């Protein structure tokens, strides 16, 4: 059928190598382009196959995402491009996209009969290189080869410039390690570290700004590997280089690990800090929440126990969390950290929009918390103040718990929550940019665990998802509504209150995954807003690859109405190039929000919020996850209250210091989100 099947250029060389070498066969390019098309609809699949063959491509068709993934894994260089449907029964198309981006880094084209803006946006944020609306015309397929060329071109450039990146990494590493060790100088260290990290990050980015770095998607699995490595090394001795070695993940750079580690430490820190205020958890938020937390880190285990003991964490959640923490995907939320960040980013965006709105504030807070990874134990009262309006949203109180494990779960949870419940409520939030993201220092865990998110949303129970200050990007509008509604109840703890029983079933992972994963997927790999903020400070846009931006977007999907707004907002957020103007706005709201949010039971109250923001900022800076932002809307308020946030954050940090560990991290301070 395919006349090009016999072409040699495909079989003998890697895609890029083949072309680079000027293979004679390349002259016939794109003839013989190896396409893998995935669609559960047999009619569409057959039509596409025929169309692609007519274009003289070499086609392999597949009706299941899992099969496609294993095919790709078995033969990583066997395909040039993947075309996948969005809605598939066994795995969400965006999740597949995420996997492919992470593992094989092939260009992926999404297609769907759904041409809603938010879905398309989700594709963008998740890193799809194109989005085709069904029914697909053959003309649309004739040019898909451009994506292959483009990607190759970018990879080549990256490869050539890898040297400069390394230097940047070294600098960053040094600064990181030095900083991590001096917890005593928290305050000073934080700010200076943040700045330095920002600079380092920016420097790194600058070097490679012209290059397109491969996206790093912190999927659940990857994060678990990370956590396992960290635990193996011992949290004290866990330095990026060693973690990277232990993880042994091809394509992962020390830089990626470094930023992820930073977030993770913040998350842990928050967890330990939060656990000091167990009483706060009680609220409705607290209930099922646990599920939201992602993988448990060693610390998480501790916290979880504590939380569980206090009755705040449902036993199930604990198990789930632990499972997650132990690297066992509980639900495959697979929400990469980046997602969180992205979400946070979005959330920030919203805050800006809604700043005046109490409800919005709440959302923002949530976002903020998430973003900063600042322990955002939202004080109930504060939260209440923040969002009276949010109450309507109510079901979704997603408290971003900074608990490590929770965080990870939170994010997904948050996202989830937002979705189902949000439906009507979220609408309002869309503009708000609810950052359902649970900021989890780990960033990912939370997201992945989205389970919590799911759960809560499903049940319509308010869940407070605590997300370590992960990117507050509230991609999914639905998620955003964190505990805002239940502000009153927000306990200082960062337990994802997922009041919804669903949450407890952390494992809803299945559900979550379906719902959230698809949503969250995008978030993977996103640098939480921290980077964005940091960037703002630095005035240097970071190159994030928003793969996961979709997270938020995904969540939005569920929330129907919300989605539209959110997605856009989110995508904007995630997208780099944050125009300082926008950022400012964001910060402002973020600040406000965070204030409200963070005012967890801690005495710091407002300070917390601010801290949160600060954390967020620092997280942003630190997160090295590269997010490629397409849009120039930067939401991070560069000038906005960075100092305020910082001080607030620091104070907050101090407040929870007793439980703090020796880790110093900037980013995650979201653990204060009262659940």
């Amino acid at each position, binding site marked *: 059928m395919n006349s090009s099947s016999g072409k040699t250029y495909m079989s003998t060389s890697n895609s890029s190598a083949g072309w680079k070498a000027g293979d004679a066969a390349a002259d016939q390019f794109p003839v013989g382009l190896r396409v893998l098309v995935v669609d559960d609809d047999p009619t569409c699949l057959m039509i596409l196959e*025929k169309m692609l063959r*007519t274009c003289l491509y070499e086609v392999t068709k597949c009706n299941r995402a899992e099969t496609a993934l294993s095919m790709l894994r078995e033969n990583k260089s066997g395909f040039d491009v993947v075309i996948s449907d969005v809605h598939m029964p066994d795995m969400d198309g965006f999740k597949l996209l995420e996997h492919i981006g992470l593992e094989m880094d092939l260009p992926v084209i999404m297609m769907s*009969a759904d041409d809603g803006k938010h879905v398309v946006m989700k594709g963008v944020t998740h890193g799809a290189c194109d989005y085709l609306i069904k*029914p*697909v*015309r053959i003309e649309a397929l004739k040019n898909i080869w451009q994506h292959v060329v483009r990607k190759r071109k970018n990879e080549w450039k990256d490869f050539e410039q890898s040297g400069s990146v390394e230097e940047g990494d070294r600098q960053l590493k040094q600064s990181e390690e030095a900083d991590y060790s001096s917890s005593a100088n928290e305050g000073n260290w934080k700010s200076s570290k943040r700045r330095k990290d920002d600079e380092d990050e920016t420097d790194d980015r600058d070097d490679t700004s012209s290059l397109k770095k491969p996206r790093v998607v912190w999927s659940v699995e990857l994060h678990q590997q990370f956590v396992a490595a960290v635990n193996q090394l011992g949290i004290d001795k866990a330095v990026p280089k060693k973690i990277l070695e232990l993880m042994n993940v091809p394509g992962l750079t020390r830089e990626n690990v470094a930023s992820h580690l930073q977030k993770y430490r913040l998350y842990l820190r928050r967890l330990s800090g939060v656990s000091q205020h167990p009483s706060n958890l009680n609220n409705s938020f607290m209930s099922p929440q646990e599920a939201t937390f992602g993988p448990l880190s060693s610390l998480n285990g501790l916290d979880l126990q504590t939380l569980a003991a206090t009755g705040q964490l449902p036993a199930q959640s604990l198990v789930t969390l632990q499972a997650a923490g132990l690297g066992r995907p509980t639900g495959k939320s697979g929400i990469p950290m980046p997602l969180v960040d992205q979400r946070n980013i979005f959330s920030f965006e919203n805050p800006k929009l809604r700043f005046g709105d109490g409800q919005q504030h709440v959302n923002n807070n949530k976002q903020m918390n998430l973003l900063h990874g600042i322990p955002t134990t939202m004080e109930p009262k504060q939260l209440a103040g923040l969002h009276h309006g949010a109450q309507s949203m109510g079901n979704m109180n997603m408290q971003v718990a900074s608990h490590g494990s929770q965080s990870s779960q939170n994010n997904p949870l948050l996202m989830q929550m937002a979705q189902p419940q949000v439906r009507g409520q979220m609408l309002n939030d869309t503009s708000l940019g609810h950052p359902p993201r649970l900021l989890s220092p780990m960033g990912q865990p939370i997201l992945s665990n989205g389970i919590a998110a799911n759960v809560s949303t499903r049940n319509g129970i308010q869940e407070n998802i605590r997300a370590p200050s992960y990117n507050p990007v509230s991609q999914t509008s639905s998620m955003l509504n964190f505990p805002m509604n239940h502000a009153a109840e927000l306990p200082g703890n960062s337990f994802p209150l997922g009041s919804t029983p669903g949450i407890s079933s952390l494992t809803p992972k299945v559900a979550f995954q379906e719902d959230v994963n698809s949503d969250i997927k995008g978030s993977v790999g996103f640098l939480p807003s921290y980077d964005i903020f940091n960037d703002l400070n630095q005035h240097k846009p970071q190159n994030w690859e928003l793969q996961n931006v979709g997270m938020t977007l995904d969540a939005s999907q569920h929330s129907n109405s919300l989605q539209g707004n959110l997605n856009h907002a989110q995508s904007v957020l995630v997208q780099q190039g944050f125009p300082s103007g926008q950022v400012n706005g964001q910060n402002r709201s973020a600040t406000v929000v965070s204030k409200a949010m963070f005012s967890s039971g801690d005495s710091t109250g407002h300070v917390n919020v601010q801290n949160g923001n600060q954390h967020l900022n620092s997280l942003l800076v630190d997160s090295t996850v590269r997010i490629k932002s397409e849009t120039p809307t930067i939401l991070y308020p560069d000038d906005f209250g960075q100092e305020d946030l910082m001080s607030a954050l620091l104070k907050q940090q101090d407040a929870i210091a007793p439980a703090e560990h020796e880790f110093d991290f900037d980013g995650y301070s979201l653990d204060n989100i009262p659940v």
Partner: protein
Amino acid sequence: MDRNRLQHQVACMRRSLFDQGYLDEPFIQLEELQDDANPNFVQEIVTLFYSDSARLIQNIEHALNSRPIDFDKLDDYMHQFKGSSSSIGAKKVTNECTVFREYCSAENAEGCIRSFQQVKQEYAILRRKLEVYLQMVRQAAVSRTA
């Protein structure tokens, strides 16, 4: 000549299918994909569509009959069905699917049930028309080669 007459009849019927809104652009794409390597491509696709979509129709029926109605699932099934029908250019069927999805998102059970009846009706009408049309096409092709 018989062949010419047959071909003329085929052309007329084809035009009326398009004019009356039963078929749309994607169907033309299918026709263009048909070539010597796949001389019965259109027929194959139509057959595949009807056999595969029968499953979806059943799923939707089942979902509509269950109480309480799971609108999310309904929407999901209909989304799939709509994607399928639009890929072969079944215009009227696809339009009815859109109406259904609107009722579905509004969680209007009554509306869903009503519009689904419309979907099934259009689906059946198109099936008959395509059977006739494709048979004519086959005959004309056979006569040509004869």
